[in-house]
């Protein structure tokens, strides 16, 4: 059952088009992430779903209802902004009460000074809602503070609280973790996932950080230049990207892309190295991609010899930036702590690519399945 349906939307500012023909179906209770480099239109797409931006054409449905021309406040979605956008003059409690008051009280009951005496019972109910939400988010002690007196993480939770308190159809989050420090960001990742499970509400999450997308979401949409390039589960996006752009954007360090050719029998050769790896295609120029971890440090089967140009120490792993003579591109490989023995800048390293894990792309960058391997195995 779909919860939010975006259909063939286009959006442009003047002559520059920001979103081109995006359709996306968001399932109920799903945690979906829109990820892409800055300027790819992901925030715009989120605002379009919220109704804060007009579209040139297309349709948006929420729970099967056409909401294309419904104003944001009537769509019953909640949004957490990058800057949190808490009302600075109100306490956390008042911030959380604001959406409730604006929806549940009549304008007379919201009248300054005297209004509250006519809505006592309702206000008590709203207070209970606020304290329930505060309980979930561990905000109880902060309720009487103003946003200026909170730390980044606390502000973030307050913004979440304001969004949660009125039980919306979906949460829209626009890079909510980008203003936090690294440790807190990692912590909030797991907290958000837990919250999602607890609440059972649709989350639409925008981020430029692929780690957030990979760790939290049920499905992720990789966006670039106003288009969705791939929409799939995180592990599929990682292991089976449908084009070079997606492969390069997802995964850290960046995937190694090398030009390669196949000979008339379909054997793959990369640079000077001719493999005995047979592919379905013959006599073609292609690109291959392999992740930094898909290498084998083995002297016997070595295919390549590279010189270490730069070493990145990540504690558990090391990233080695290698220059291989026969290849124009630099190669980054990941080796674990125990394999890292006596390697310095300018050391020479022998390694082979794990050919089973190779991704094939045609000259236009579209991935295709060229592996003959699995096929052969089946026959045998």
């Amino acid at each position, binding site marked *: 059952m779909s919860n939010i349906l975006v259909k063939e939307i286009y959006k442009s500012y003047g002559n520059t088009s920001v979103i081109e023909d995006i359709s996306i179906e968001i399932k109920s209770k799903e945690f979906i992430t829109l990820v892409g480099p800055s300027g790819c239109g992901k925030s715009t797409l989120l605002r379009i779903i*919220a109704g804060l931006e007009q579209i040139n054409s297309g349709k948006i449905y929420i729970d099967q209802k056409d909401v294309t021309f419904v*104003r944001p*406040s009537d769509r019953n979605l909640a*949004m957490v902004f990058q800057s949190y*956008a808490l009302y*600075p003059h109100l306490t956390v409690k008042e911030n959380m009460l604001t959406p409730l008051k604006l929806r549940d009280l009549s304008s007379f009951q919201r009248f300054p000074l005297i209004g509250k005496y006519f809505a006592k019972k309702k206000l008590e109910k709203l207070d209970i809602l606020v304290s329930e939400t505060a309980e979930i988010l561990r905000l109880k002690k902060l309720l009487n503070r103003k946003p200026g007196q909170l730390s980044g993480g606390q502000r973030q939770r307050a913004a979440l609280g304001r969004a949660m308190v009125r039980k919306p159809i979906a949460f829209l989050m626009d890079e909510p973790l980008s203003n936090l420090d690294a440790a807190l960001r990692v912590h909030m990742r797991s907290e958000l996932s837990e919250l999602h499970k607890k609440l059972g509400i649709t989350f639409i999450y925008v981020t430029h950080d692929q780690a957030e997308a990979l760790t939290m979401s049920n499905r992720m949409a990789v966006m670039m230049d106003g288009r969705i390039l791939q929409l799939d589960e995180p592990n599929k996006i990682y292991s089976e990207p449908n084009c070079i752009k997606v492969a390069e954007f997802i995964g850290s360090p960046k995937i190694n892309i090398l030009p390669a050719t196949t000979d008339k029998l379909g054997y793959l050769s990369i640079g000077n190295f001719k493999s005995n790896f047979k592919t379905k295609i013959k006599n073609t120029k292609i690109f291959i991609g392999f992740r930094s971890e898909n290498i084998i440090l083995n002297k016997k089967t070595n295919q390549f010899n590279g010189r270490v140009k730069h070493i990145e120490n990540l504690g558990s792993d090391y990233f080695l930036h290698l220059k291989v003579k026969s290849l124009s591109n630099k190669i980054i490989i990941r080796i674990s702590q125990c394999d890292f023995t006596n390697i310095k800048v300018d050391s020479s390293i022998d390694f082979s690519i794990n050919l089973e894990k190779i991704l094939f792309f045609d000259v236009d960058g579209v991935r295709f399945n060229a592996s003959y391997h699995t096929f052969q195995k089946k026959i045998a």
Partner: protein
Amino acid sequence: MNSRIAHYWFVSPALVLMLLIFGIPIAIAIFLSFTDYSLGNKTFEFVGFENYFKIFTRSSYEKMWGATLRYVIVVVPLTVGLGLGAALLINSITRFSEIYKTIYFLPVMATLMAMAIVWQVMLHPTAGSINRLLSSGCEIDYIYNLFTLSFVGQEASESWYGSICNGNMPNWLGDKKYAIWVVCFVGVWQGFGFNMVLYLAGLTSVSRELYMAAEMDGAKSGWERFKLVTWPALGPTTVFVVTISFIKAFQVFDIVEAFYGFGSAGPSKSAYVMMFAIFEKGIKQNLIGVGAAISVIFLILVLSITLIQRFLVERKVHYS
């Protein structure tokens, strides 16, 4: 140099200037306000609080209080309100905003003396364009009916507009019924553009995301968004604008001087504002003691308004 007293050296230039420009003159003014000194006199005598006593009891000073308070009470809310209104309107349009800014700011930039002459001409009882406009409306039935309130059954000839149409043209500047209000009007016309610019500057700092958040939270009307986002964000600006407006309103002098400089502060002294009183007593009549006393009261008034502002408003204002 002893480093323990170095900080005194650092602040001394500012301190010396402050003392020379503010401290000493204020002290002298306070001193003189207790004397009967006149310029040119070799001696003077201490009169104690007599000057102050006069200011609070004599009828001519009663006029001063009346005119000053009327001016302040009318001009401060109107310049602040119109300034905010104009700023909000200009901020909401995408085109021609520069033109509107210029139009509203022109009176601030223009020399008030010259503008006062223009207003004098316009407000002239017989030749002025304003009275011409009023009398030309008499011949148009619906305007006549509207302004005389005869459409709700009022006796037309008894109303204000009715009497104008009967030939009693208002003498805007010469009639004590109108004089101070005309001065107020020119004060508002001349003053609100400045507040508008301050508010425009304040509006640029309001976060766009806050408006989006307000919309998502269900603030549908412009009034609700204003209440929830704009007005609180403009708090610091408002403190400043209101304080400045109060001080400027108490300081009004040039309009009265331009309109009534040769007479005596308007018909029956109805526009005898404080600054004009200081000028008249202290300079024209050479009663330095009385002039100084009014100045001291003026100083106390402005100072206390500023302090009240700080204590009352700033506590509730949020500085982000």
